[in-house]
């Protein structure tokens, strides 16, 4: 089943440690030694005053996370949700929330989620918060859900964003995640092919610098026949940053006709940055096509030379090549406006990535 490991940020005894295989490379208990203080609930009456605009935008602050389904129900099929987490220097405040979203049969929904911070840029560095959120999606027959997520959180934040997805026959779930990491950031997605012929895409890109940590964990279970899963994760790390990719594809007995492909490609730009990858296949059916690939390497010196030979200075050439490395992930986004916003984010992230 799509069960997430129980985790209550206000109960330190529930924090996973390195000894939990699923959290082997992301040791929460080491970073978070004690429970954060609870955010004072945001005094807003969501029923009376849904903070939404006619164009499908909603801004959700801290504890309002669990209101997500209600807000989504009120929004158009194309929703832009901005989750703002307030952080304060020195004080560690936490919030957590969970929400269940059902996409009705045949409906096509596109959700654009942005996880952002609500503090002036000059105080970002010291600002911290602990966010632990979970969204559960149920796709009815033939439903489409396109989910685009931007994780733009401050360097000191501890953020755990988890979701589960359950498909029905012939439904489509496509997810694109873009991250710049945080002190500790985990994006975890569990997908269960509970209906035959479902199509799942789980793409993502990350750009990590300084001491940021990003953990992309996915668990895909094929429980029904003829499901397809395609996953491409691309990323860059430099300085002392850590990128973790844990992907698992499980094909249950009888899930014949499964076609599952997983690919993780990463570049390490300097010694001392870390990449931990664990792409797993667990197969109990024989009429399947499953493959995974994982590559880790340095920026191609020949390409760099090629660019420089054409008059580019080294910094520009590096910027161009690294940008070109993560860009293809955004190409899969069909919605032009959202793709534009993602490209804008990637460009900003790219510039910031190379800034000293």
């Amino acid at each position, binding site marked *: 089943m799509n069960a997430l490991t129980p985790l209550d940020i206000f109960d330190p005894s529930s924090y996973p440690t390195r000894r939990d295989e699923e959290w082997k490379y992301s040791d929460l208990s080491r970073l978070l030694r004690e429970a954060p203080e609870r955010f004072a609930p945001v005094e807003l009456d969501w029923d009376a005053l849904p903070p939404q605009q006619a164009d499908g935008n909603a801004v959700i602050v801290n504890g309002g996370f669990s209101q997500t389904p209600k807000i989504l129900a009120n929004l158009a099929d194309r929703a832009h949700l901005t989750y703002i987490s307030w952080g304060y220097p020195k004080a560690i405040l936490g919030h957590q929330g969970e929400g269940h979203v059902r996409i009705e049969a045949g409906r096509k929904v596109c959700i654009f989620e942005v996880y952002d911070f609500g503090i002036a840029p000059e105080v970002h560095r010291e600002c911290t918060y602990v966010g632990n959120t979970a969204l559960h999606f149920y796709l009815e027959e033939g439903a489409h859900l396109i989910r685009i997520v931007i994780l733009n959180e401050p360097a000191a934040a501890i953020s755990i964003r988890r979701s589960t997805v359950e498909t029905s026959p012939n439904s489509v779930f496509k997810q694109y995640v873009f991250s710049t990491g945080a002190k500790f950031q985990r994006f975890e997605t569990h997908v269960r092919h509970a209906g035959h012929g479902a199509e799942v895409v789980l793409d993502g890109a990350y750009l990590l610098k300084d001491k940021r940590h990003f953990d992309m964990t996915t668990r895909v279970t094929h429980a029904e026949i003829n499901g397809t899963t395609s996953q491409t994760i691309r990323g860059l790390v430099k300085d002392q940053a850590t990128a973790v990719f844990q992907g698992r594809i499980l094909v249950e007995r009888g899930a014949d006709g499964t076609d599952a492909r997983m690919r993780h490609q990463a570049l*390490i730009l300097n010694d001392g940055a870390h990449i931990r990858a*664990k*792409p797993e*296949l667990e*197969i109990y059916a*024989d*009429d399947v096509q499953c493959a995974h*690939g994982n590559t*880790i390497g340095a920026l191609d010196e020949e390409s760099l030379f090629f660019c420089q030979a054409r008059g580019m200075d080294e910094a520009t050439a590096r910027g161009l090549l690294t940008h070109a490395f993560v860009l293809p992930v955004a190409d899969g986004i069909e919605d032009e406006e959202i793709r534009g916003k993602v490209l804008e984010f990637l460009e900003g992230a790219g510039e910031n990535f190379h800034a000293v």
Partner: protein
Amino acid sequence: MAAVKETIETVAKLETYEHGFVTDIEMEFAPKGLNADIVRFISAKKNEPEWMLEMRLAAFERWLTMEEPDWAKVNYTRVNYQDLYYYAAPKKKVGPKSLDEIDPEILKTYEKLGIPLREQMVLAGVEGAPKYAVDAVFDSVSVVTTFKDELKKYGVIFCSISEALREHPELVRQYLGTVVPVSDNYFAALNAAVFSDGSFVYVPPGVRCPMELSTYFRINAENTGQFERTLIIADKGAYVSYLEGCTAPQRDENQLHAAVVELVALDDANIKYSTVQNWYPGDAEGKGGIYNFVTKRADCRGARSKVSWTQVETGSAVTWKYPSCILRGDDSVGEFYSIAVTNGAQQADTGTKMIHLGKNTRSRIISKGVSAGRSSNTYRGLVSAHAKATGARNFTQCDSLLIGKTCAAHTVPYVESDTAKAQFEHEATTTRLSEDQLFYAMQRGLSQEEAVALLVNGFVREVLQELPMEFAVEAQKLVAISLEGSVG
């Protein structure tokens, strides 16, 4: 193709486990169970130096505090460590000088297994036929080592580890436990405490060992565990190729085999280690069979050293085995070629670790898993590069083949990189036997079993090529036999 023909012939023989017989000879056992006295008993039995006993006792103390690992994807009834014999040796006259003094039943056993224990048997063969020096380990002790004298002319030491402890204690002390420390893991600690025999090889600087060395392990007695310890040292510029084979009788209860193999390669040395593991796999229902919990590790200590592991794993009820390379020396090379075939109720969790510490170290992993019946076959591997391992390079390919609807194949690779100048590539695929190819082969007159054997041998060909020739033929037959009854 002769090899194909041979495969087909072997399949036609329809024998499932031809090594399942028991040899009836007089044995000497230590009392059942495990405690410090048993450890002392084993050490005394072997006239070991004091430091060895101390090392054993320290390992035993450590083992008592450890827990049996449970992270592997295998399910089995836990071993009752107090219900085993830790020492079982054929009763024999003190130190047989020649083969004639060895119990003829043992000789017959090896004859039946096709292992040449008489040097003349090998020499009497076709002119120019390659020679094999054999160390034969029967339950807890080494019964004979052949070609010792000829090897001595080259300065190569090849003997049982008990003999090495008596004759070359300084060499053993220098290297034993330096690759696999006693506290490395649960089974390694157990082995360090109670190991009874195994092989020792030392190849001096610049010597290319003139013949293939090989050890043949045989478990015979009931309720015994086999704990062998192998130590191979290739000094600067030396080369050695070592083969290992294993069989056991067909019994209803599970038997434990917990070995430790340590390889040390100094500057420019090259060690090739091949295993054909054919322990009794248990019956189709999963009754009986060997638990194969083995720790194998190579330390490429010197610059430009190379270690190559090749394994063909067809036997054992449960396999837990990860032959690894620590690539410490600059420009050192580690290779791992593996075929793991599981059928019936067998479970295998096997793979490798390539730890890149030195500069420009290279490693290559080719793993082919074939699962049939209700078996489960897992590749588990780690490739890691330390921040100083600039220029490290790894290529990994893991392919799994599924035959039938009730088997399982898993791939669990761990890749950890801390350096910008390393290049790691990993590829894995899982598919079933192609219906088209099967149809094609059968249309040309092959029976279904022959066609499967042919296709599977094609699938594992890349690894078979790495084995010494005689072993390759043997392994090819073994793969075909192991898959018998898996289709239709």
